[in-house]
């Protein structure tokens, strides 16, 4: 009880919590747009580059997060594209919140893309056909006919992706740096507590993350009823 109060009262916790929330919201938006777009593109059979895109989306999952993070660091670090990005945009990814966001989006993305792709492929073809005969182009058809009818799969995908992104540490650690007060998400704080051997702190923080996530998951489940 006392330990709980001590840990939760910790002012150093406010930052990781706010950071995680910010990242979670931004990730959700990016997943919803990117995931839907890629899922739609992949559900169209036979176009050049489809298999390549498919593998590019899924393959990152097979690498241990920390390894993926290391790979991205090499790619986006100053010896890689990083210098170029920094000159172009005036800011780098490494050690920044942008790096944390990139990590979060990347690890969750396939979990949105794949279910959406499968659900679109399973829709009866004549719904889109009917909409075409009603004078609609492909984009309104997608937005108003395809998408609402795969809401169940999209909801499931966003739920999984949000959960996965909340728990991400490996890539975040490498790209963001796990820097106190700058890029340490709540998950990284728990990770740090465990690796330092502060198990009590880890437990209390985990309970807090669990509670917070349960709320997020419940909200996501509500928002996406089966059509």
């Amino acid at each position, binding site marked *: 009880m006392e330990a709980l109060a001590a840990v939760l009262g910790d002012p150093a916790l406010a930052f990781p919590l706010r950071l995680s929330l910010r990242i979670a919201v931004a990730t959700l938006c990016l997943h919803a747009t990117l995931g839907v777009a890629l899922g739609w593109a992949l559900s169209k059979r036979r176009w050049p580059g489809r298999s390549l895109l498919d593998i590019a989306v899924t393959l990152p999952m097979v690498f241990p997060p920390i390894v993926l993070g290391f790979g991205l660091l090499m790619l986006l670090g100053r010896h890689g594209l990083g210098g170029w990005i920094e000159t172009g945009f005036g800011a780098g990814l490494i050690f920044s919140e942008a790096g944390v966001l990139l990590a979060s989006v990347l690890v969750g993305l396939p979990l949105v893309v794949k279910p959406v792709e499968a659900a679109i492929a399973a829709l009866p073809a004549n*719904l889109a*056909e*009917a909409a*075409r*005969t*009603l*004078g609609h182009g492909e984009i309104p058809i997608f937005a108003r*006919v395809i998408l609402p009818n795969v809401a169940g799969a999209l909801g499931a995908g966003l739920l999984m992706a949000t959960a996965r992104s909340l728990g991400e540490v490996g890539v975040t650690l490498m790209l963001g740096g796990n820097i106190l007060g700058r890029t340490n998400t709540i998950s990284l704080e728990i990770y740090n507590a465990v690796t330092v051997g502060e198990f009590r702190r880890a437990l209390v923080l985990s309970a807090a993350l669990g509670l917070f996530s349960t709320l997020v998951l419940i909200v996501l489940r509500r928002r996406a009823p089966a059509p």
Partner: protein
Amino acid sequence: MPTAAPLDVTLETRLSGPEGPFTLDVGLKAMAGEFLVLTGPSGAGKTTLLRLIAGLARPGRGRVAMAGQVWCDTARGIDLPVRARSLGFVFQDYALFPNMTAAGQIGFALHDLPRRARRDRVAELLDLAGLSGLATAFPAQLSGGQRQRLALVRALARQPKLLLLDEPLSALDPDTRARLQDQLRRLHDLFGATTLMTSHETAEARRLADRVLRLEAGRLGAAPPPPPSLRLVRV
């Protein structure tokens, strides 16, 4: 009163039927505003023909022109997108959107109209289909006949130049059927939309049509006299 120029179709496509593959090979002309009914045995290619004309399927080769506009010409590489063809289509299995209410489906077809005009027109069309009380019902909550009526008014909503109807009346009860037959004919006469409809009902075909055509194993012919089986019917 707008007048529509004629429909001119020449198409050839391979299909596979119960007795093996056959070729759908059709030449078809309709006068401006004509009401054509297409009959023929199940699997003859009636649905396929409508889909080819609408641009929902690509023909092996051929040409489709409507009201002076070439919709498709394989020789010249022309293939107008479906949305650019002024047509309405009623699918044999309705193809209603599971996510839209009855009113929503019709409103979706009327996307060009301003909101207020759209609402009035939706109400008018729902009333025409006898669905006024079910404006907010989703397809899953409608009976079979209600679904088909909804699909019919949805296709009529945009007042297309060409109306393609794949057995639009088959699941209706006699009263509604008679009412919609009359309404269909009236709308057709009013707007002069060229209409191509498939039907199994020879009687209905003769009642509605300016001309009845028979499609058999992929080839067109004039409709024969009513088959003996219908003469047996005790009315």
